């Protein structure tokens, strides 16, 4: 997000803006009306409608343009391709869970609809013998709170690594 290239671009834009504020304002396009900017509300996770998806990874993206934000994996199944949402990439990496095209995978989750189409909100992701809980049984991402359930020794390691409190 904070690459040097983008910083340079930002400096140029700011300089031009400082010199010619009136011109920039005049050339700025008007924002589109609010009514054209809205999307249907993102559907909720319905536990009662959980499904199992088994297939082969077609593609894997840690910063997909698809909604919800986060990691998405496209899975080829006998019924067609399915977009699967896995949440923050950092959580997957921390749990040594990685996927690549051609991997055989299994997901448990619920289908949700977004502006970019249907997506499986994964609760459990499995590759081979490795299974990772992505969401709670209520459908919420575990990433922000799950580390608190780690064994004491593993949590204490954070302090030993020198983080001040």
């Amino acid at each position, binding site marked *: 997000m904070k690459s040097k290239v983008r910083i340079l671009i930002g400096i140029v834009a700011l300089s031009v803006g400082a010199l010619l504020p009136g011109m920039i304002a005049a050339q700025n396009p008007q924002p589109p009306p609010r009514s054209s900017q809205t999307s249907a509300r993102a559907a909720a996770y319905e536990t009662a409608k959980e499904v199992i998806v088994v297939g082969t990874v077609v593609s894997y993206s840690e910063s997909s343009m698809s909604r919800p934000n986060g990691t998405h994996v496209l899975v080829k199944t006998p019924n067609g391709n399915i977009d699967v949402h896995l949440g*923050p990439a950092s959580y997957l990496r921390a749990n040594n869970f990685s996927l690549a095209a051609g991997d055989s995978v299994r997901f448990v989750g619920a289908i949700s609809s*977004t502006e970019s189409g249907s997506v499986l909100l994964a609760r459990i992701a499995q590759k081979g013998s490795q299974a990772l809980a992505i969401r709670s049984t209520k459908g919420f991402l575990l990433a922000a709170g799950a580390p608190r359930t780690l064994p004491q020794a593993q949590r204490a390691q954070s302090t030993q690594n020198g983080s001040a409190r």
Partner: protein
Amino acid sequence: MNTSARRLSALLVLIPLSFFAAACGGGGSTPPPPPPPSGKFSNASLSGQYAFSMTGTELCGGVGSLFTRIGTFTADGNGNITTGLEDVNVCPGTSTLQFSGGRYSIGGDGRGVLQLANNTGTTDYNIALSTTSAGMIIQTDAAATASGSFQRQTASAFTNAAISGGYVFDFNGVDVNGSNVNPASYIGRFDADGAGGVGNGLYDSNIGGTASGQQAFPSGAFYSLDSNGNGTNYGRGTAVIAGRTCAFYVVDSTRLKFLTTDFPSALAGDAYAQQNIAFTPSSLNGSFAFLIGGSSSNGPITTAGRFSADGNGNISNVILDENNSGTVTLLPTGTVTGSYTVDSNQFGGGTVSWTDSTVGTFSFIFYLISPTKAVFQEVDSNIVSDGTFTAQTTTPITAASMAGDFVLGWSAIANAEEDYVGQFTLNSSGSATGLADFNVFSAGQPFLAVPLSGTLTVGGDGTGANTFEATLQGNSPLHFTAYAVDPNTVLLVGTDNNIVIAGPLVRQP
């Protein structure tokens, strides 16, 4: 933390240390100290005892994890932190830590850096003063980012007797019950009897999208300022509120800062003195702006907007922006109808719901602090989100009336948590220029004194959906919808698809 991360952390600690060294001068080859900052603020602006509260993300077992901290520091008005105390609910557990010292420096624009030292090391913060009594704060360490606020304490309120009357509270964070980990929100109210007793305790929790409905406090509720000196010196106490074990710090008799200590769960929030009146439906009459945030099954979510209540149970003029992990939904899209109730027990609790004929229904719980302010909790399926609503001014707002100096305090989730403070000047045409400081957890480093430019566009009478575009140099523009409470406070919600961001703008004097 790996070696490179430790090195990065060490380097980052040096940045504010160097700043302090320059500010304080030195001998030998050290350059002469810079001239005193020009502007409204200086080190003297931060003087006395301040209570703070923050929620953020830290590294825990190699992955980002929610943590909370509340506490107090004493600033001497000359760049030194002389004492302080804090409670943290962090990866290894909960603890109460004494500050052994620290340093700070405030620029003329009210932005500043703060270091707090305890026996675990030194933590770094950037702050933005809205007045000499309050401000926004973010933690800017490499392995931890957080955001929150601080307010000057009133030491005469550091007694049980000063905590008396009704209080409305809003706690949020994460609830851990065995292997069940879910976002959680508690809002409610209680009466403090001035002697540590708690009565008429009521709350509504939303844990993992399951709303409790209004509940009475379980037995065992209490509050007590510490008797070991931490109470009288720092305003620290312990309490059980809504069944959650807490530490708290007194700001003054009208505001308390809470943190739950029932690890591995972690919640934090404030309690506000409740106006002593019998609340009825007529108590809610006028236009209100709101900002809430939390989690949905899609990921982070934030919603801001405004609505009108007629004092008779009807809601109208609903406008809102919801950013649900990148899916942005705006109201009105179809026809919106709504209603509200206020509890017959007259303790100020109630419900609000509205339905957009195209989008669907939004449902909330509230507890009124007064007829002009309430804590606000969404209770729609698979959403845990809370915040406040506040009465909007009845005077039209224009770009010209908004002109002046503002501080910002935003929290965001992009790839991971990001926290922002800053200060800018808004001219009568709506153009903003200033500086911002922000910490990006996924980058493992803060970005300091980044030039900010932007534009506030006010439409209609200014109480609807205005827009604010802000560009932090070197970054893509951030697009917000801006809901004005009045000319002094604006609530922002981001409408970009790649980041969920929200927070207020607060006018400086």
